[in-house]
Each structure stands twice: as structure tokens, then as C-alpha cells.
């Protein structure tokens, strides 16, 4: 692999303006500044401006692929547009060596009235490619896009997936040194996405430099050797793709959990009309109700503390994969409560993964009063390595009314430990289990040849010694 540096971004910053009218006026000012050879204010932000990108530095050599990740509005596309020379940086410098191809947006250059073939010629001419070269590449472009039957139909009748295929095919078949790709592959079908990934991998291996914006972390981890994580224009992390993706994923999860936790707090004090009706009609018969004062609920059962305990009896917030799991709930019932039902909901990214509920499992003691503790043991907790939240609520004995406010009481992480006890196949398996379904179910596969059982594959987990 050649060590030639093709893309070098040195402390690049870019300002954007929030308001259209101001932005247009600043545009006029900037043009005048350019004519008069004055700088456009440099570090200083004018009113309404913010940094769309700030002090970004990256380097991409031949044979490297850089993945840009971050939420919407993080500045990924802005960086890509500056790399392509569509905008000037406000600070810093960008050096690009060689012939650049960019796929900033799908079908940007397609004229809907013209046919696919006509559009290929125009697009290629836009990219600065001679007619002779296009004529030679034409069959390959059409073949890769898989559009043989539609190439002489107007592009207006193409689906977005077909446009994506054509655009990607043109950009990659013309042998660029540097390839810039904005998140355009998301629209294609799975087969085409895979084809694109193979193509990009092949390009990287043939000593191109590629910058790639995507929301698919899987693609970044699988294809890129470097990743840049941007948040609101600033670099959060830059380095090895795997490490950056992992840090990004953890952060995403934490954010989602904080959100769901906030929702949980929101839940507090809200009593539905149905519950209120139920409570007022039964108030005199049973004490196993929530009391209502001034329209606000008061918990009959106060949750004072929740602990997560591992198989050795130690309180912790990290658990190995598929290990025994115990939740200890300390409560205080201000009045005698009739057969309270405890419920634990496990959430990942704010979504319910599973729930353990005494509504299903059955009642506990008839009357509960004062301080006490409930334990719930889940043997071999069937969760994959991720972050989780636990939402706790207590129901009245008939299961209809909440007698404690539903809220997030704990969070924990399932770690990669003990993952080696299941037979993961290939380098992507780890990735699969991290990013795939949160629930892990032991299962058995049986292979038949005709009607004869020839092999059994068990996912059985073996206890670590």
C-alpha cells in the first residue's frame, strides 16, 4: 500500500447562518470581501451564525477509507462538500490530490425527461470525463447498475433505488483517485447495498482514498479503517473505525436512555380518568389504592432503593453475558397495601425488551406494610451486550391501578465477557451480536438430508468454569 496522502484537512472550520435573510446578506458581504481581498472575519461569528464545522483535521492516504458518522446536522455533508470544493472553508486548508469523484446526492445531475443513457453522458461530462472514456465504460456502468432494460427510458420513471444504482455506478466506474460518497446507499435494496460495499472495498484495495458518510455503523465498521465522529460541528473522536463506532454506539444508547428516563419522570403525577374513576368507586372498600389529593397521585408504595446483584451477591451495574441477575427492591408502604404486584420492564434505547411482572407470575403476601424488600431473580439473563434501563412500577392487587409512579430505577450494561462461550462465526459475528437484537434465546438447529437427521447445531451456552 502506497503511503501517498491524498486528502489532507487541516483545522478546517465553516460558519453557517441560522436565518435566511441574514445568510443571504452575509453572502453578499463575503463576495465583496473576496473581491477586495479582505478576510471574512475569521474566528469571529456574526450575529445569527454558528460553527457548522470547527477545527476539523483528518488525513486519508491511498488505500484508506474514512467513515464520517454523527447525528443529522453534525457537519458530515458540509465537510464532504468542502472536500469536493463546492464551498470554501472559512478557516484552515484542504488539499486534495488527484482526480475526485463525488456522489453528494442521488440523481442530483439527472434530468428526469432524458433517458438513463443520455443522463450517463451528461453526468460523466459533468465529472469531466471525455466521451471516449464514457463510451468504453458505458456497458460496465449499465451492467453494474443492473438497468439494461430501462436504460433508454426517461429517468422520471426510475425508482429512487434505480437512481441510486445509476449514480453510484457512474461515480465508481470512472476510476477516480478520491471518492466521496454521501449517505446515498440507504435507498438501494439489500442486494445492491452489498454490491456497493464490495465495490467500495475493491476500490479501496486498488489504492483509492474514500470518504464515506453513512448512518449504517455496520458499514463503517466493516469497510472503513478510520472513522471521524462529528457532533454539532466538532470532532468527538477520530481514529480506528472500530473504536470510534463502539464509542459512538455507547453514546447513542446513553442518550436514548436519558430520553426515556426523562419520559419516565414525565409520567409522574399523571393519573388517567379511568384510574381515577376506579379509585373513587372503591375507595371506601379497600386500602389497597392510591390516595389522590388535589388531582396528584401519592405513592402508596415508595421505592426507596433498587440494587442489581450478580451471582456472587455483589452489587454492580455490569454483568457478563447470560449470567444470573438479581434485582433487589427496597420499598416503604405508608399504609397497609393489599397484594401489591411488582413489575420490572427492561428497556434498551428507550424501547421495551421484555417485562417481568407479577401480574403474570401471581400474587405475593396479602398485606404489606412499612419498610420491606422484594427480590426478583432472573437466571441467565437473555440479553446481548448493550446498555439497559429498568423501569419499575407497582400495581394494586387487582392489577388495575398504579400504586407507585412508574420510573426508571436502575441501569446496567451487559458486557462482552463470556461471549466466547458461544460459538461466534467469523469476524462480523461480534458486530452482529452487538448491533442486533437485544434478546438472546438459546436455540437448536437440526439439519436433515431427506428425512435423516445429519447434524444438530446447538447455541447452548456453557457455564464458565
Amino acid at each position, binding site marked *: 500500500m502506497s503511503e501517498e496522502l491524498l486528502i489532507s484537512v487541516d483545522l478546517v472550520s465553516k460558519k453557517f447562518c441560522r436565518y435566511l435573510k441574514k445568510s443571504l446578506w452575509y453572502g453578499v458581504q463575503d463576495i465583496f470581501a473576496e473581491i477586495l481581498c479582505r478576510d471574512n472575519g475569521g474566528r469571529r461569528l456574526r450575529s445569527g451564525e454558528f460553527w457548522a464545522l470547527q477545527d476539523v483535521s483528518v488525513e486519508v492516504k491511498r488505500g484508506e477509507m474514512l467513515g464520517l458518522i454523527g447525528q443529522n446536522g453534525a457537519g458530515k455533508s458540509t465537510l464532504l462538500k468542502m472536500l469536493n470544493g463546492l464551498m*470554501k472553508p472559512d478557516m484552515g486548508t*484542504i488539499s486534495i490530490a488527484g482526480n475526485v469523484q463525488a456522489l453528494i446526492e442521488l440523481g442530483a445531475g439527472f434530468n428526469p425527461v432524458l433517458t438513463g443513457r443520455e443522463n450517463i453522458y451528461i453526468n460523466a461530462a459533468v465529472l469531466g470525463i471525455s466521451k471516449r472514456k464514457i463510451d468504453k465504460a458505458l456497458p460496465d456502468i449499465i451492467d453494474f447498475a443492473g438497468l439494461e432494460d430501462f436504460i433508454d427510458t426517461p429517468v422520471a420513471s426510475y425508482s429512487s433505488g434505480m437512481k441510486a444504482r445509476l449514480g453510484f455506478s457512474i461515480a465508481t466506474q470512472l476510476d477516480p483517485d478520491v471518492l466521496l460518497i454521501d449517505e446515498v446507499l440507504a435507498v438501494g435494496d439489500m442486494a445492491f447495498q452489498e454490491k456497493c460495499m464490495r465495490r467500495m472495498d475493491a476500490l479501496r484495495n486498488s489504492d483509492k482514498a474514500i470518504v464515506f458518510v453513512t448512518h449504517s455503523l455496520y458499514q463503517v465498521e466493516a469497510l472503513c479503517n478510520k472513522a471521524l465522529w462529528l457532533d454539532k460541528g466538532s470532532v468527538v473522536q477520530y481514529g480506528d473505525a472500530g473504536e470510534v463506532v463502539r464509542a459512538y454506539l455507547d453514546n447513542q444508547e446513553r442518550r436514548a436512555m436519558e430520553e426515556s428516563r426523562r419520559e419516565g419522570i414525565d409520567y409522574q403525577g399523571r393519573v388517567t380518568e379511568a384510574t381515577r374513576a376506579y379509585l373513587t368507586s372503591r375507595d371506601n372498600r379497600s386500602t389497597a389504592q392510591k390516595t389522590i389529593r388535589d388531582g396528584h397521585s401519592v405513592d402508596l408504595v415508595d421505592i426507596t432503593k433498587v440494587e442489581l446483584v450478580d451471582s456472587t451477591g455483589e452489587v454492580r451495574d455490569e454483568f457478563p453475558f447470560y449470567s444470573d441477575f438479581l434485582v433487589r427492591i427496597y420499598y416503604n408502604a405508608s399504609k397497609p397495601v393489599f397484594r401489591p404486584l411488582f413489575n420490572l420492564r427492561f428497556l434498551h434505547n428507550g424501547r421495551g425488551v421484555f417485562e417481568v411482572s407479577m401480574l403474570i407470575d401471581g400474587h405475593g403476601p396479602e398485606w404489606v406494610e412499612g419498610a420491606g424488600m422484594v427480590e426478583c431473580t432472573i437466571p441467565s439473563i437473555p440479553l446481548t451486550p448493550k446498555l439497559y434501563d429498568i423501569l419499575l412500577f407497582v400495581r394494586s392487587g387487582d392489577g388495575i391501578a398504579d400504586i407507585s409512579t412508574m420510573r426508571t430505577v436502575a441501569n446496567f450494561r451487559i458486557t462482552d465477557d463470556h461471549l466466547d462461550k458461544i460459538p461466534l462465526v467469523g469476524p462480523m459475528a461480534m458486530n452482529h451480536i452487538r448491533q442486533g437484537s437485544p434478546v438472546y434465546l438459546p436455540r437448536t438447529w437440526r439439519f436433515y438430508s431427506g428425512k435423516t437427521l445429519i447434524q444438530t447445531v446447538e447455541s447452548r451456552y456453557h457455564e464458565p468454569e
Partner: protein
Amino acid sequence: MPNLADMGNKSKKYSVPVVVYSPESQLRRPLVMFRSMVKDLSVSRELAWRLFIRNITAQYRQTFLGYLWVFLPPLVTTVTFVFLNAQKIIRISETEIPYPAYVMIGTLLWQGFADAVLSPLKIINQSKSFLAKMHFPREALIMAGIGEVLFSFTIRLVLMFCVFIWYRIPLPATAILAPAGILSMMALGLMFGIVLTPLGVLFQDIEKGLPLILGMWMLLTPVVYPLPTSWPASLLSKLNPVSPLLVTTREMITTGTLTQLHPFLIILGVTMLLLLLGWVLYRLALPHLIERLNI
């Protein structure tokens, strides 16, 4: 291209040419800028041709009347003024050739100028998403626009020939200079169009106002009436740069006596200089425009 500093082979580290983008104004390196202007112009040709073909084929595909739209504006203007004049609603002084022919030639020439004024802004507004998402020599757009203007004009020449044959107007020897006159008018129009482009892309007022201004401008130009000689109306020919160009070009194909040659040459020279400056402005402004469009 935007702030391109072609370092060429200066750096031995690279096997391929390097492009540097920085906030620095391109004007700080006029030589580098000039070289890349010339280079971009030459590589633009292929793309400009493609865009031109695309525009003229796609333009009328979704219309019922098709290329008839090229003829309609000058025809409608001519018919209107011939009618107004015949009914004595307006009084136009005697022309040296039959009035319908006079109006037709005038409107055709004016249309060439007006098309050239509108062309840069029109093609850039059409290609906004193109510009914002693809990097290509931006000169190609302007060139494709000029191509369209020339194309429409050439088609409309059919009308002009019809008029000449119908009224049996003999062509003088100066008619051989007519293409130069026509091109000068278009160059003047293009100059106005290019200079207005940066503002026009940012503020749609320009695009909305231009047809209005051009409509009025046409009436202030001796298109449908002969050049006024008495003061203060004669000021029109002195202050209006289109007048000498249009009058001279018309004289080239009709009377053969060029009464406005002097102002014609002066205006042509100034136009060429301003056109070059307009081009520089266009290059400097485009990255800023794209940024502000934010599409």
C-alpha cells in the same frame, strides 16, 4: 475552480496534481487564477455541449406547441405594434423599409439581447441542485446558456428571411458584418446577465424584476420606432448602450449606412472589458452562492 491553487508538480511527494482549498481570496494569486480560468474554459466545452443538447432537447419535450415557442415572442410583439401603428393608436415616424419588416428585425435583434441578459441567471437557477452537489467547471453553464441563445436566434432567422423575401428588401454589402453586430449585442446582454448573477442567485427580486425592466427597456430602445433625433428623446440613444448596437446592426442589414459606428465600437470595447471582469466576479462568487443556497 473555487479558490483553486494548482500546485502542479511543485511537490514531488505527489504523483497526481494537488488542489488546495483555503479561505484566501483567489485574487491574491491572479496568475494562478487566470491560468485556471483558461483551463476551465477549455475543459468546459464538452460539458457545455452536452448541457446545451440536454437543454434544447428537454426544454420543449413537455410542451404542446414545441419549438413554436421560439417564434412566438417576436411574432406577438411584431403583430401588436403593426396593429397599433396601422390603427393609428400610436404614431411612429416613417421608416426606410416597410414598417412590419422594421419591427420584425428590431424585435428579433432585441430578443437576442434580452435572451442573453436572462440566460446566465436562468441556467444557474435551473442548475442549482447540480451546482450544489457536483463539482464541474462552472463556465460550462454560461457557455451552454450562450449556446441556447444562439440556437433560438438562429431558428428565428427563418422569420427574418421570410420578411426579407416577402417585402423584397435587398441586402446591402454591410450585411456581411451583421453577425458581428448580433454577437456584440449578445455580448452586452451577457455582460449585464453575468454581473447581475451573484445578486440574482441570492435574491429572487432580480429574477422577478428583470422581465419588467427588459420590457420597459425595449420601449426605451429604438426597436419598434426609428432613432429619435430631437432633444430630449435623442438622449435615449446617448444613454442607452443598446441603442447604438441595435441601430447599427439593423443598418447593416437594411440601409447599409452605419450612422452609429463610433458609439458602437466604444460600447463594444467597454462591454468586452466588463465581460471579463464579470467572469472573474462569477468565479469568485459561485462558492459563496452555493453555500448560501444550502440545498
